[in-house]
């Protein structure tokens, strides 16, 4: 039986609804819709993404997660959603944890010492937090006498930052090409810092 495109779309929507926050792997959708290739499924979902986004009457959207997709509410819904008590609030990562996880993501596998050299400060606590949150994990041991633990990122990292895979991270080297723009971004960053400082 050949399914109509609208039907395929409706099935994908249904699956995304059913799996909710767990999301749905492309591979799983493929098992339910064996007549579609993975690429076709990706094309459908990408189109659905656009449609949701364009539809002002819809409060929903589709986001990437590792190897799959998830149906969520649109960002503006956060205000309204928070009035439902059952939704747990997640505390954002600290600045130290963000810097550390960025270094792990770009330089993995990387040891604590490497990270501390770049940051210029002890980073043990930040590493521990990231391990506990599941964003990074031990991926091996360095050679040599110390056999230092080497860290790498996990699929939780990708999910947490809404990435399909690691290649979606903006390349660091490219960031260097646009130094002038970066300086502007840096200004913004320190504006934010000033606020922090005022609050202290």
């Amino acid at each position: 039986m050949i399914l109509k495109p609208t039907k395929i779309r409706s099935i994908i929507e249904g699956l995304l609804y059913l799996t909710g926050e767990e999301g749905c792997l492309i591979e799983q959708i493929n098992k339910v819709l064996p007549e579609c290739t993975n690429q076709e499924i990706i094309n459908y979902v990408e189109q659905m993404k656009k449609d949701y986004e364009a539809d002002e009457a819809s409060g929903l959207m589709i986001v990437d997660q590792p190897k799959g997709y998830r149906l969520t509410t649109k960002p503006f819904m956060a205000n309204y959603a928070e009035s439902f008590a059952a939704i747990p609030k997640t505390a954002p990562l600290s600045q130290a944890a963000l810097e550390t996880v960025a270094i792990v993501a770009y330089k993995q596998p990387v040891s604590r010492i490497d990270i501390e050299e770049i940051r210029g400060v002890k980073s043990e606590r930040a590493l521990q937090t990231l391990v506990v949150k599941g964003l990074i994990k031990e991926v091996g041991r360095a050679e040599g006498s110390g056999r230092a633990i080497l860290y790498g990122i996990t699929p939780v990292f990708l999910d947490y930052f809404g990435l399909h895979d690691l290649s979606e991270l903006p390349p660091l080297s490219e960031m260097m090409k646009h130094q002038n723009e970066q300086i502007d971004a840096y200004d913004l960053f320190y504006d934010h810092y000033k606020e922090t400082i005022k609050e202290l």
Partner: protein
Amino acid sequence: MEYKVKIDAFEGPLDLLLHLIKKLEIDIYDIPVAEITDQYLDFIHHMQKLELNVASEYLLMAATLIAMKSRMLLPKPELLNDEDDDSYEDPEMTREALMQQLLDYRRFKEAAEALKDSEKKRLLLFAKPPSDLTRYENNDLTTIPLSGRATMHDMLRAFRRLMLKKKLEQPLNTKIDRQVLPIGQQMNLVLQKLKTSDHGLSFHSIFSYPDRTHLIVTFLALLELMKMNAVTCVQSANFDDILINLGEGADDFEANENPFDY
């Protein structure tokens, strides 16, 4: 310049240096060592709270800057032989190294900033809990391939991690450790549970503590109650959960005067 700043406003000496470079509109590729050193020292003098465990990192940087500055003030040793070079640290090299370190750190700081953006966006998105698909599936967890299951170790590690996180040092089961459980008391407890429950109790629900003594005593209590007709047990099929109901003899049972307190 406003100096009322706590040390934790910065991620470390590199972060502070970047802040000064920005604030003083210094070219990061041509850092004036004397000026940045003075500003840096001035800044850490004014930091309201210099915690000992973090201060060392700031002080080390201060020492590096001071060393660099003083070497730059000294005339370069002349007519150097290659062999003598070892003892002389070229301040230009140190400055170059510091610049490189600052550039590297800044790159990652920017990357962290991009991640922070993604995080912020992501934290605004909510999803429903997964629907209960049991009506569509054979709800038998044993069909999960062994390789895909969480193991006991997973569970225990999760638990230990949690305990560590909460810094709960006391074992949770001190209350039930070494507790004496007379059978009579346990019989009473089972009967009370049954009386407050309107639909009978499952066999399993009675054994509510992970404690060997408790399990054995409860089981003996149950056998006694069955013998006295105070409870009836029903099992609809092999390996089904056994359902326990109050029996006719339940009202006759006077627990406090029973002889099973051994």
